[in-house]
């Protein structure tokens, strides 16, 4: 009857407005974290593919045509450790790749088209990139090894920028949420001043009073964070239906850390603030 009833009046500490703010903040934080996780995963997939392959481009030199150098290059590739397979890209395919820039049928016969080799690497063996580069230059001066380094660097830089941006958003959302909670707690203490005074005078400890505040806030936080999380997770689920190989349970579990940490943060802020405020009372 009385054992579990709320000692503080319902909604006198944490009202619906605070609930809406908490839900929004949790939603935004989930979006920020989800964006980082998604980009990280996509970048990881792209980088794995990129690091698993290199391209060799052979162009004509003053004395040798590209075709003349091809055999020497193939010999080097066959004895190089760390190379799984290689494939000479057919000329038609190369012309097809040029067509978007030059227009269909505009690739003339006298246009020097290099020989391209798509080389797959064996991930279990160490691949000596510089060693291959030196060997190639010795046997085929027109051969150029492309490990997609610049593209990879740009991708990594982009991902890093996004990580920093999302971290900033998370920090801002955390600060804003903490501020809102502190203001709400202060208001709640003001509204319940008489009740708190009576509780003190009948022998309540500060921790007991603090628990009453924590209870109201946490009930609201639990509900608000659940709404924020479900909303954000639904958006990601919709996005992932458009992208293959992106959705997995681990993503949603990691995203769950946002509401869990939000609730933990709410609890710690309230407990600290209320206990410190009550300590100033008689």
């Amino acid at each position, binding site marked *: 009857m*009385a054992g579990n009833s709320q000692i503080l009046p*319902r909604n006198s500490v944490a009202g619906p407005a605070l609930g809406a703010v908490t839900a929004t903040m949790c939603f935004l934080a989930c979006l920020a974290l989800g964006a980082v996780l998604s980009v990280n995963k996509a970048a990881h997939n792209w980088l794995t593919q990129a690091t698993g392959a290199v391209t060799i481009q052979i162009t004509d030199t003053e004395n040798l045509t590209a075709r003349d150098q091809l055999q020497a290059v193939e010999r080097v590739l066959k004895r190089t450790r760390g190379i799984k397979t290689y494939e000479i890209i057919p000329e038609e395919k190369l012309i097809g790749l040029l067509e978007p820039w030059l227009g269909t049928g505009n690739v003339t016969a006298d246009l020097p088209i290099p020989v391209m080799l798509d080389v797959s690497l064996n991930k279990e063996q160490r691949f000596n990139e510089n060693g291959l580069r030196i060997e190639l230059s010795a046997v085929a001066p027109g051969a150029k090894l492309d490990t997609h380094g610049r593209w990879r660097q740009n991708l990594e830089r982009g991902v890093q920028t996004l990580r920093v941006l999302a971290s900033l958003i998370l920090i801002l959302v955390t600060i804003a949420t903490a501020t809102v909670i502190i203001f709400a707690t202060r208001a709640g203490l003001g509204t319940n001043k008489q009740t708190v005074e009576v509780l003190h*005078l009948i022998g309540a400890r500060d921790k007991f009073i603090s628990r009453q505040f924590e209870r109201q806030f946490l009930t609201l936080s639990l509900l608000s964070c659940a709404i924020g999380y479900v909303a954000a997770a639904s958006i990601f689920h919709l996005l992932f239906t458009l992208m293959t190989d992106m959705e997995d349970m681990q993503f949603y579990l990691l995203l769950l850390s946002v509401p869990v940490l939000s609730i933990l943060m709410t609890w710690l802020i309230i407990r600290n603030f209320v206990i410190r405020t009550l300590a100033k009372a008689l």
Partner: protein
Amino acid sequence: MIRFENVSLRYDNNTDVLQDINFELKPGSFHFLTGSSGAGKTSLLKLIFLAGKPSGGKVFLFNQDSARLPRAALPEIRRRIGVVFQEFRLLDHLTIYENVSLPLRVCNIKETQYRSNILELMNWVGLGDRINAFPTTLSGGEQQRAAIARAVVGRPNVIIADEPTGNVDTEIGMRLMRLFAELNKQGTTILIATHDKQLWEGSPYPRLHLEQGSLVPTYGEY
């Protein structure tokens, strides 16, 4: 049990509320604290239930100097002092049962351990049929009795009542006095602040009389 030694109290605006107060309440005693409105009765009571600190002198509660009590020790002392506030100070959003059980809840006692005791106490103060009512629906006398029930439920060593009959008619006032006398017989120290002469006149209990913040002798009364 409670001892005042040269206690004075001055508000921030330099108003002297109490001056050089000396008295002692022995265990099991019954005292009236009398004086006209504004004489300092409520201020003196506040020093006992630790709602204020003296500006000078010492207040000893259960042989401990109240000024030297660490904050963590205050709840234990307060639990030994039941207070009936002049304005009752019942929590309007809680039922009478919840209000009365509050001193036990703050001690983290489980409801199963106190429920029957509360119901018995509510019957004793004549509120057995109003346990689920909210304070605002009760008459002044009923609220007063609920406030008394809340003050005694934790079986405190001392009960302090500030104008306990101020809001009730004479008949209920006398019933409340019989209630306090009964508690006193059970060993509880009682201090009742009142400006109502009818309440203490002809009573066998000693009187501490305040006039303009000072205790004055009440010769030849007892």
